[in-house]
C-alpha cells in the first residue's frame, strides 16, 4: 500500500513553506489540505477518463527555475513569472495609489493576510472540493494575486505571463486569486506557456475569480502548455448582484489537460458568458468541463465551446447548465461544437442541463461534424490550397471566441497560436 500523502510529504511541505517565509496560517492550510487530500477523491467529469495520468501523485514541491525566458508581456500593467520566480512586474502608480494590488502569491500571503485569509480558497474553490484542489493548496509553488478595491475601474488590461519550465523536473502548482470588489471593472489576460524540454511534468493550476456586486470582470486566457506537461486546470468564478463575469479561453495546449471551468451565479441579476476554443493534435487528450450554475434570480449563464480535433487526438466538451430551485427568471444556454479533421480523432460534445426551477429559459445545441464543404469549395475556387483553406475555415469556426478578446495584439497572438497548432496538426 502507498504511504499516506501526509506522512510522505509533511516534511517537504513544511520546509518549503519555511523557505518562502510563509505566515503560520498558510502553513496550516497546507498541512490541513495535505491531510484531507488522502481522503478526498479525484473530481469526476462525464466521459473524461484521466485516472491514468496520475495527477494525484505529487512530485517535488521545489519549483525554482533558474532559466530566463524572453516572454515579458507588452503591457503597462503586468506580472511575469517563470516557475516560482517573479521575473518582472509593473503596476502604474496611479493604480497602486487607488489601492489596486498586483503581486506574487507568496508576497500576498505575507503582505495582505486579511485579504488572503478572507478570499483564498474560501469563496470559489475550496481545498475540500476534491483531491486535486487540496493538493493545489498543499503544494502551491507559484501564483499571483490581483485585487481591485471598491469603485475602481481599470481602463487598461492587466496581463500575466506564467512560464512552466520543462528543462527541470518540477511540478507546477499554481494559484491565481482575482478579487474585484463592488462597483469595479477589470480586464485580465493570462498566458500559460511551457518552456524548455527534457522532463515530463505535472501542472495543477487553480484560478479563482470573485466578481462582487455590480462589478464587470473580463478574463481571457491563452494556454500553451507543452506535450510534456500533464495538467489539471481549474478556473472558476462567483458573481455578486448584477455582476458580470466573462471568460474567453484559448485552449491550445499540446499535452493532456483537464479543464474545469465555470461560474456560480450567486448574485441576483448576474451574468456570465463562458467561451472556450480548443484545438487538439497528435495523440493528446483534452477534456473540458464548463459548468455554470444559476443560484440567483434573473441570472444569465451562457456557455459557448468550439473545438477542432486533428490526427489521433481526443477532445471532449462537457457543457453543464444548472438552474437551482428558486433561481426564477434565469436563463441557461449552451452550445458545444466540435470539428473532426481526421478519422482517427475522437470527439464528444455533451450538453447537460439540470433544471430545478420552472420559471426559466434554457437551451442547448451540440454537434460533432466535419469541415463545411461549401466554404472549402469557395476558398479553393479562388486558388487557395486545401490546407490553407481548411485553416481559414477553422479560424472562422473559432472566431466567436477570438473576437471576444478585447486587445487587438492578443487576438493576433491567439490567431497565430491557432495557425501554429493547425499547421502542426495538418502534418
Amino acid at each position, binding site marked *: 500500500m502507498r504511504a499516506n500523502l501526509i506522512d510522505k510529504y509533511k516534511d517537504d511541505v513544511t520546509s518549503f513553506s519555511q523557505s518562502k517565509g510563509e505566515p503560520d496560517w498558510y502553513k496550516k492550510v497546507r498541512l490541513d489540505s495535505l491531510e484531507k487530500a488522502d481522503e478526498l477523491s479525484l473530481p469526476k467529469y462525464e466521459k473524461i477518463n484521466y485516472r491514468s495520468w496520475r495527477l494525484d501523485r505529487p512530485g517535488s514541491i521545489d519549483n525554482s527555475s533558474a532559466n530566463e525566458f524572453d516572454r515579458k508581456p507588452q503591457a503597462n500593467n503586468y506580472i511575469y513569472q517563470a516557475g516560482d520566480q517573479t521575473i518582472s512586474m509593473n503596476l502604474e502608480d496611479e493604480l497602486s495609489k487607488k489601492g489596486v494590488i498586483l503581486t506574487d502569491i507568496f508576497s500576498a500571503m505575507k503582505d495582505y493576510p486579511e485579504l488572503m485569509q478572507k478570499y483564498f480558497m474560501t469563496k470559489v474553490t475550496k481545498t475540500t472540493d476534491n483531491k486535486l484542489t487540496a493538493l493545489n493548496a498543499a503544494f502551491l509553488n507559484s501564483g499571483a494575486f490581483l485585487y481591485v478595491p471598491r469603485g475602481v475601474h481599470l481602463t487598461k488590461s492587466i496581463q500575466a505571463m506564467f512560464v512552466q519550465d520543462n528543462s527541470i523536473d518540477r511540478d507546477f502548482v499554481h494559484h491565481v486569486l482575482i478579487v474585484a470588489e463592488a462597483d469595479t471593472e477589470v480586464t485580465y489576460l493570462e498566458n500559460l506557456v511551457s518552456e524548455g524540454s527534457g522532463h515530463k511534468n505535472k501542472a495543477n493550476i487553480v484560478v479563482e475569480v470573485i466578481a462582487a456586486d455590480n462589478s464587470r470582470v473580463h478574463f481571457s486566457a491563452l494556454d500553451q502548455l507543452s506535450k510534456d506537461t500533464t495538467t489539471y486546470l481549474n478556473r472558476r468564478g462567483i458573481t455578486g448582484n448584477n455582476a458580470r463575469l466573462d471568460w474567453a479561453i484559448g485552449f491550445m495546449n499540446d499535452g493532456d489537460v483537464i479543464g474545469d471551468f465555470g461560474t456560480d451565479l450567486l448574485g441576483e441579476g448576474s451574468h456570465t458568458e463562458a467561451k472556450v476554443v480548443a484545438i487538439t493534435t497528435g495523440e493528446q487528450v483534452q477534456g473540458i468541463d464548463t459548468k455554470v450554475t444559476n443560484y440567483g434570480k434573473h441570472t444569465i449563464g451562457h456557455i459557448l465551446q468550439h473545438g477542432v480535433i486533428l490526427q489521433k487526438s481526443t477532445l471532449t466538451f462537457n457543457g453543464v447548465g444548472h438552474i437551482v430551485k428558486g433561481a426564477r427568471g434565469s436563463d441557461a444556454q449552451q452550445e458545444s461544437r466540435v470539428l473532426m479533421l481526421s478519422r482517427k480523432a475522437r470527439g464528444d460534445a455533451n450538453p447537460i442541463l439540470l433544471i430545478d426551477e420552472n420559471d426559466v429559459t434554457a437551451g442547448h445545441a451540440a454537434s460533432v461534424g466535419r469541415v*463545411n464543404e*461549401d*466554404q472549402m*469549395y*469557395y*476558398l*479553393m*475556387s*479562388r*486558388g*487557395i*490550397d*486545401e490546407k*490553407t*483553406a481548411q485553416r*481559414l*475555415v477553422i*479560424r*472562422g*469556426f*473559432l*472566431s*466567436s471566441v*477570438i*473576437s471576444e478578446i478585447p486587445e487587438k495584439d492578443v487576438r493576433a497572438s491567439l490567431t497565430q497560436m491557432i495557425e501554429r497548432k493547425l499547421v502542426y496538426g495538418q502534418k
Partner: protein
Amino acid sequence: MSTLEIKDLHVSVTDDENGEGQEILKGVNLTMSTGEIHAIMGPNGTGKSTLSQAIMGNSAYKVTQGDILLDGKSILELPVDERARLGLFLAMQYPAEIPGVTNVEFMRAAINSRRDKDDQIPVMDFIKKLESKQDILDMTDEMSERYLNEGFSGGEKKRNEILQLLMIEPKFAILDEIDSGLDIDALKVVSRGVNSMRGDNFGSLIITHYQRLLNYIVPDQVHVMMDGRIVKSGGPELAKKLEDEGYAGLRDDLHLDVKLTDEI
C-alpha cells in the same frame, strides 16, 4: 492567347433522395478564347449553372463523358484550387459566408496562392490595387475589412465577387447569374467592373436569364442552352430576339421537343 474548350460534356448530379445519378448536361460543346465575351442564356433548369460548376470542378458534379481543356490540356483530373491557379474564376450565384476571415485577408491569400512563397505581394502594392478596384465598384474599405460575405446583402455579395475577379485577374471568368437580385444601379456598377477587365488577356462566360445585363456587357457571342445542350449560337442580336420572343418561341422555331421548367 488562351483557349477554353468544352467538348461533348456530359455531367450528372446525384439525386439526394434516391441516390441515383441524373444527367443534367447532355453533350455541351463550346470554345472560347481570351479577348472574347460569351453569354449563355436559357430558361431555368437547363444546366447553365451545372456547366459553370463542372468547369470549376465542384465535386458534386460528375463528368461522365467529354472533356474540358484549358490551352489544349484536360483539366478534368485537377482539383478546384489548381484550376483556379491555372486561370479559371467562377463568380458564384451563392457565395459562401466565412466568419473570422476578413475580405482583405482572403484576397491576399488568393493572390499569394498564385505567387512563389518568397515573392508574396508587398502590402503597399496590394492596398493600392485594392483601392483602385474598389473605386471602380463604388466600394469602401469598410466592406473589405468585414468578414468574408458575412452579413452582406445580395447586392454586396455580387459586388464582392466582382471585386475578387478584378483583384485576381483570371484568364477566364464565369459569371453565374451575377445580375440576379441587382437593381439597375448595382447592375451598372457590376458591369463597369467586368468591362474594366476586357482585353486580350481576359475572356468571360456570362450566364444569365435576361438580356438586360447584355446591354451593359455586350457579348461577342450568345449561346442558348436548353435541356442540357447548346441549341443555338449567334451574335448579340440573338439575345434581343430572345427577349422579344421568349425561349418557347425559339424552341418551336428549332422544332425541339423540350419541356421548359416554368412553362404553363
